[in-house]
């Protein structure tokens, strides 16, 4: 429900934030209890000494309140935080030496079996994975009702910045739009912000200038309206816009983030503005997307076979398992290195989480078929738990060409799909999609 994203920002309440953090643990405990058919008597408080093994659900946290959010944790610096109900909110040192395979990160909700023998630490002996949500399904009638031009649905995915780092120059975007209309001709183009990046150097120092205009823009909103919108308006396909908290063209500078206002941006009806994060349907398949760099911000402590997987696989798996687009807490932070972390003036930017509304960043009742998580790290696509996970990379990479993704979805053929019931079919989009990483702005 897009209306829910219209909450007022800049009024974060500590108690509401805490309510959400507490609720996260208990609601996950309920899911685990039902899934594994645990006996609720098995649950105990991991903070207190006990003669027998217990089950517990909690949040992985660092062992010190002073740990920087981008610090590399290790296997001996992990604590487990309990809910108010599970252990009156106390935190206990986590001994993971008996666990063979794991990947832990701050903010992660975990279910563990183990024992607190001495009262000093909780020795975990087993991890219970959070069950995955089911995949969406469609009926044969629904599947046959969607259009696939030339048997394929072609979707392009781009993410900002759309200008070089040193100059607020949109000519690369203009060339791309030209190429999209004349050569690539997709059915849909999904564009992530930032479009006008509030942190661009030429905005920060006020030196941005635009040649070839009768009148110079007077505000950042003018830059969008006078420079960016005329370029975007040329696009002929369906365009989906997802904002970034770095976009100047929004007053909602927090995540979860309200959508752009299409009309005030002067964009036509082939544009759809979605919030950040958003879940939406393209033909039969469900797309989940979030514009907050989880691949950069999630740092895990890893051991065993999980170590052999790529970091991107592990993170994508965490997002899918945790059922939320941005499971890290506290959120990522960018600061000036020369200053102490606790010094506010060191702040550059961050994940800008509005905690009490993070429920809007949770998956609905099913997994998406396609998960788009833009990151400034190198672009990739992979299949994790039968979900096609895509990072298009950034359109411009500092001062050179970045990347974008072209995804071709083959039309569904009933006989080739997996049946989930009498007349319900799994979309198996991962079997039907081909992702090509292309060079962005040149």
């Amino acid at each position: 429900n897009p209306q829910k994203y219209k909450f007022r920002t800049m009024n974060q309440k500590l108690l509401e934030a805490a309510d959400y953090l507490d609720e996260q643990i208990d609601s996950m405990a309920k899911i685990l209890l039902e899934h594994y058919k645990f006996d609720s008597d098995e649950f105990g408080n991991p903070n207190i000494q006990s003669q027998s093994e217990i089950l517990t659900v909690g949040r992985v946290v660092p062992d010190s309140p002073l740990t920087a959010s981008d610090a590399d944790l290790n296997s001996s610096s992990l604590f487990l935080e309990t809910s108010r109900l599970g252990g009156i909110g106390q935190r206990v040192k986590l001994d993971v030496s008996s666990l063979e395979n794991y990947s832990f990160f701050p903010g992660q909700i975990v279910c563990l079996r183990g024992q607190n023998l001495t009262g000093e630490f909780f020795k975990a002996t087993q991890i219970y994975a959070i069950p995955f949500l089911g995949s969406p399904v469609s009926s044969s009638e629904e599947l046959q009702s969607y259009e696939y031009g030339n048997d394929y649905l072609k979707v392009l995915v781009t993410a900002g910045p759309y200008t070089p780092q040193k100059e607020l120059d949109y000519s690369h975007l203009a060339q791309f739009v030209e190429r999209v209309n004349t050569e690539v001709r997709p059915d849909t183009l999904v564009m992530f912000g930032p479009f006008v990046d509030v942190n661009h150097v030429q905005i920060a120092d006020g030196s941005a200038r635009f040649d070839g205009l009768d009148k110079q823009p007077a505000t950042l909103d003018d830059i969008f309206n006078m420079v960016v919108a005329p370029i975007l308006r040329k696009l002929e396909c369906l365009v989906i816009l997802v904002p970034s908290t770095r976009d100047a063209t929004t007053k909602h500078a927090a995540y979860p983030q309200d959508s752009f206002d299409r009309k005030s941006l002067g964009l036509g009806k082939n544009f759809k503005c979605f919030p950040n994060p958003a879940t939406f349907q393209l033909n039969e398949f469900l797309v989940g997307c979030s514009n907050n760099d989880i691949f950069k911000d999630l740092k895990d402590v890893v051991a065993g076979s999980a170590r052999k997987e790529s970091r991107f696989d592990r993170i994508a798996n965490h997002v899918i398992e945790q059922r939320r687009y941005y499971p890290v807490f506290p959120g990522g932070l960018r600061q000036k290195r020369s200053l102490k972390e606790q010094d506010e003036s060191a702040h550059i930017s961050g994940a800008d989480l509005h905690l009490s509304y993070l429920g809007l960043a949770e998956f609905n009742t099913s997994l998406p078929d396609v998960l788009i998580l833009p990151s400034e790290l190198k672009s990739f696509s992979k299949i994790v738990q039968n979900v096609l996970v895509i990072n298009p990379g950034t359109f411009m990479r500092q001062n050179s060409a970045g990347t974008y993704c072209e995804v071709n979805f083959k039309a569904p053929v009933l006989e080739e799909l997996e049946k989930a019931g009498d007349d319900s079919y799994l979309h198996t989009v991962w079997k039907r999609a081909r992702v090509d990483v292309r060079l962005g702005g040149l």
Partner: protein
Amino acid sequence: RASAELQPLDSTISDSERFRDCRKFVMKCSSCHSSFDFGGIQASNKYQTTYSGIKCLSCQQMLSPLAVSAQLEHFLRHEISAYYAGWLVCDDCGIKTRQVSVYGRRCIGKSGKAYGCKGIMRYVYSDKQLYNQLLYLQSLFDVDKAKKRVLKPLVADHEFEDKENKPVALNQGELDALVEQNRDLFRSHQRVVDKYLAECGRRYVDMGGIFEFMSVFKR
């Protein structure tokens, strides 16, 4: 609507008092890159408000409207993001952290175990402070305040060690003329701040507070 009702209560406090703890708006000249504290239409050795906008006194070049509003919005968004970094401080042990206990106000303590310290956690950058920071930026482009000489002074009087270098105050005739010449331009800068003030949840919290306050009187 909201501001009109806020007026009678707020006007009892001067801007220098109310905005005492606000972060200064430092602007950079886009020609010579020297930076200066911007304090609205008032005397400064670093910049001058002319009949056609703000001029850098280091290089005598004018700052374009975009140069000012881009830096204004960049600064404002930086403040919002710093607010959302969510730093908390304990009023007892003084620990600063971005971790939040499931009880919110409870201190996690040096032990990291969320017991032991009886202190109360609160946000270092409160929503009230952020709201005030927005009002401060709004005031810098308030030409009527400039006219009445009620803007927060760039430098407090007692901070002037070198009295000879104190900028000469503008005479009223000059000031009145500057105010009228810059009214539209400054109003356009204020609209940048308005965009965020309209969104700011704190403003509505304040309104509630006022109604509560008034109902006390009605009783």
